[in-house]
């Protein structure tokens, strides 16, 4: 009997074979917090008198502020609290406005096949490196930061087979929205999603990260993939080829459920307000006028995403009465897209561009919709109030659909505007 990918990774971590259903105390290979989970962690440490104690290993702990440059004194004070703690304990430290926490982790620190715990729900993203990675709150992070350990029930696995060539205008995001329509937001609660199949193998790492980032948005504990030459190549970009380890799945593992997705039959999709699982074809929503478009976030703010958007918008203008906000999601993405002219193309089309941060995705930073506005965003959640205004309606889409929508001012199937 083979093992699921998550059983393999946790077995390696524990030093003995584990099976789904067992509860174990894992050793955390890398831990991180952001300005959402960090301030409460620091306050809990202070309240309990742990704040002078060392962290388990400062080389394996990152604090990263996301919402920068700071927009209010309250945000600035929370950032200061995290900064002081991180620097005082010799941890890795990243300022706001330099990217979201996960980009710092997978660009600079994450090794294949390890256990990664971050005080953020989208930690599932790191499964694209063949890691067991899951999010938690500040109290669990107090234990992780002090002891380098946390208790985990080894999850059962849904195997998601994605096969076939993606048609024109269809991207990794559409695969994930398709899955959200199939398993909804709750069928995979506590489960591991193991993504396999030739479509996944042919996807770039950036596309894979889009898929794993949204594991939590279909309820899963983690999402995980095999590693291969694409993974090695991506690590090489960041000068970290030595952190590559080949992780291969077994055919005869015990999968609780197997779901097949025919990528070749996919069309551009959107999630309609106010739930991720509320999936429809983009072309069915073409009568919806859109006020604000946001291309960015930990789900779709990478180099390829901005390239796709720039290709669609090159030499054209954002529709009058519609505004487009573009935020590269890390300093690496920002610099790459500055160098190759992508940001210039987008700015010439009329896009507003912010320094790397999470933007309006969770209603904290700049780009908040006005009352009753309709938004198309490449982020991962469209809950009521998510972007800071409970009267706004949010559609989720790929960067291509978002860029096509920016051109017309109405939700647009990107195939209509692609050369």
């Amino acid at each position, binding site marked *: 009997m083979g093992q699921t990918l998550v059983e393999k990774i946790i077995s390696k971590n524990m030093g003995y074979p584990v099976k789904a259903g067992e509860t174990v105390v894992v050793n955390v290979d890398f831990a991180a917090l952001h300005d959402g989970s960090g301030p409460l962690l620091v306050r809990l440490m202070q309240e309990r008198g742990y704040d002078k104690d060392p962290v388990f290993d400062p080389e394996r702990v990152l604090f990263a502020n996301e919402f920068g440059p700071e927009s209010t004194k309250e945000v600035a004070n929370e950032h200061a609290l995290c900064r002081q703690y991180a620097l005082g304990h010799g941890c890795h430290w990243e300022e706001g406005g330099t990217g979201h926490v996960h980009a710092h982790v997978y660009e600079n620190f994450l090794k294949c096949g390890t256990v990664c715990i971050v005080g953020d729900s989208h930690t599932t993203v790191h499964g694209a490196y063949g890691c067991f990675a899951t999010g938690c709150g500040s109290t669990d992070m107090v234990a992780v930061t002090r002891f380098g350990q946390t208790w985990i029930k080894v999850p059962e696995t849904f195997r998601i087979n994605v096969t076939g060539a993606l048609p024109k205008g269809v991207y990794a995001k559409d695969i994930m929205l398709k899955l959200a329509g199939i398993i909804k937001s709750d069928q995979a*609660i506590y489960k591991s999603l193991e993504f396999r199949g030739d479509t996944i193998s042919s996807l770039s790492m950036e596309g894979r990260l889009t898929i794993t980032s949204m594991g939590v948005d279909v309820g899963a504990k983690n999402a995980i993939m095999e590693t291969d030459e694409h993974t090695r190549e991506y690590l090489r970009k960041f000068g970290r080829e030595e952190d590559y380890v080949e992780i291969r799945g077994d055919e005869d593992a015990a999968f609780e459920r197997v779901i097949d997705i025919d990528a070749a039959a996919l069309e551009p999709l959107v999630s309609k307000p106010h739930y991720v699982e509320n999936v429809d074809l983009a072309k069915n929503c073409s009568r919806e006028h859109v006020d604000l478009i946001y291309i960015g976030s930990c789900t779709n703010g990478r180099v390829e995403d901005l390239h796709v958007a720039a290709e669609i918008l090159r030499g054209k203008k954002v529709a009058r009465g519609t505004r487009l906000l573009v935020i590269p999601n890390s300093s690496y993405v920002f610099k790459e897209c500055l160098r190759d002219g992508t940001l210039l193309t987008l700015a010439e089309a009329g896009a507003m561009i912010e320094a790397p941060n999470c933007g309006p995705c969770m209603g904290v930073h700049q780009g908040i919709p006005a009352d009753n506005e309709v938004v198309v965003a490449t982020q991962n959640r469209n809950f*009521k109030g998510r972007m800071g205004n409970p009267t706004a309606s949010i559609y989720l889409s790929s960067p291509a659909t978002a860029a096509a929508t920016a051109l017309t001012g109405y939700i647009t199937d990107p195939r209509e505007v692609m050369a």
Partner: protein
Amino acid sequence: MIRDSIQGRAWKFGSNVSTDSIAPGRLISLRANPQEYAKHVLEDARPDFVQGVKADDFIVADRNFGCGSSREIAPIIIKLAGVGAVLSKSFGRIFYRNAINNGMLLIECDTDRIAEGDELVVDVKGRVIRKTGDPDFEMPFTLSEKEVKIINEGGLLNYIEKYNSLDI
């Protein structure tokens, strides 16, 4: 300690009530002041809730309560609002851990059998839910051993201090 019995009114909610609905991100600057944040708990999902909720009342949701972000302020302000327990067919995984870690009781059960305004008695010790004025109604439930152990100590950090172990 887990209380033996809790009595209160049922406040019904739908499915997929996210942590964004429980603790809106637009009010993030209140995070350093949870008492103040608690005055807005769930206001985007159901504005009358925070006005009318009384100590020991119950949140009774459909499925996937607490889905979404890992913000721990969500269960913290539910607890500060005085809620006795949250009942739902299922819970977002991170919300579940955060709630237990803060000593907040969550119960998985068939919430279709409970109506808005029902007066409930949750017999925690006997693991059964009853309705005031409906002697025929009885809904047994289970709690995980970990939930009981952690809540009994008043949260995860107390548990770790007492037993010097993460093995719950």
